[in-house]
């Protein structure tokens, strides 16, 4: 199959056939910030952090779900994109209760990392401070909805790699929540195999191993990439 040739930030680059703009950028060492995308899982375009400008299109396009087309002219780092990215990050921080200094993922959190990289020093929007539950009914794991950014990585990893489909999404807008088994407490979810893949995939402190305290929850999302590559391409070295 023929490679695709396109322009990213004024540079001519080539991408493997069928690659998305995000993959094309990564193959060429160009960094686009992401949150919901995780190598090894399907892409959903949930967080919009990976937005890029494509010449000829007035709308911004999420790089993780946009196919890299022949002759496409893409910009990944313009003032407009930086403005949108900061706004998206601030919206995520304002929507739920991210209290980093007392979070299990403090210092190992992809949301925190993206905010730091974007140079975010405060949130201009008023914090919503919703009253949200923490479910620690599972013997080994817990889910703290205060930290969830609804990226759906847990849903996808549980469905696509573990085949259990314990997780799903319920509700709309600000009422949206990740749920386990028809909205039962996680500890009662019979479909859960306790494999722990969701805890490795979660980008924030939302899913954690029981017993982790402040800053102790280090997610290993690289294991998800490893398992997926091992199964799909028989690549067994991490």
């Amino acid at each position, binding site marked *: 199959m023929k490679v695709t040739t396109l322009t990213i930030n004024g540079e001519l680059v080539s991408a493997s056939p069928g690659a998305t703009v995000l993959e094309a950028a990564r193959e060429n060492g160009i960094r686009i910030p992401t949150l919901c995308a995780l190598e090894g899982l399907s892409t959903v375009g949930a967080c919009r952090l990976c937005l890029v400008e494509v010449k000829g299109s007035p709308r911004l396009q999420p790089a993780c779900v946009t196919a890299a087309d022949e002759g496409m002219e893409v910009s990944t780092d313009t003032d407009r994109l930086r403005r949108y990215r900061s706004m998206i990050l601030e919206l995520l*921080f304002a929507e739920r*209760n991210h*209290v*980093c*200094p*007392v979070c299990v993922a403090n210092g190992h959190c992809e949301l925190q990392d993206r905010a730091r990289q974007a140079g975010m*020093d*405060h*949130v*201009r929007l*008023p*914090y919503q*401070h*919703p*009253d*949200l539950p923490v479910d620690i009914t599972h013997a080994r794991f817990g889910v703290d909805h205060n930290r969830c950014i609804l990226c759906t990585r847990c849903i996808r990893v549980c469905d696509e790699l573990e085949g259990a489909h314990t997780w799903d999404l319920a509700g709309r807008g600000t009422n949206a929540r990740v749920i386990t088994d028809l909205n039962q407490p996680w500890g009662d979810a019979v479909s859960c195999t306790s494999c722990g893949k969701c805890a490795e995939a979660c980008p924030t402190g939302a899913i954690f191993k029981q017993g982790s305290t402040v800053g102790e929850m280090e997610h290993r999302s690289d294991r998800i990439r490893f398992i997926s590559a091992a199964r799909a391409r028989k690549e067994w070295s991490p």
Partner: protein
Amino acid sequence: MSPQKKHFRPRIATVWLAGCSGCHMSFLDLDEWLFDLAEIADVVFSPIADVKEYPENVDAVLVEGAVANEDNLELIRKVRARTKILVAFGDCAVTGNVTALRNPLGGPEVFLERAYVQEADTQPGIPRDHSVVPELLPRVLPLHQVVKVDAYLRGCPPSPAAIRDLLLSALGGEKEKE
């Protein structure tokens, strides 16, 4: 400022609103550098100095803590009016942080009831004298939702080195204007 050109000494202050004082502890952890600071600037107001009234014409202030009660609100407005550079000092000032953990629970009554009645060992009862416990605001707010903030110093608490760097750049900026 040209008449005092040679004698310009920046006037700095630190203020403690609704925070745990950890940011001030980190400031004190600058140890002997505080002597260097005293060489180049006057500390005109601080919870660690015995000055009752926030003075006029302050060049830079570090404000620790969120705005949680009427006393905080009154002080931060005064501080803003009397200061050139206002720094949100630490996560409670920048985001509300732990101080704002009461917000999801509802209004202040829920929380006063919990602290002074349910958890009381002796003499349960909510203190209604606001000279004793200032009236709580309906919601705890980060500084920038109340007054204009000029710089943000993240961290819970910010490291002593980060505090020193910020002070030096704030004072340096003021010096250049001499």
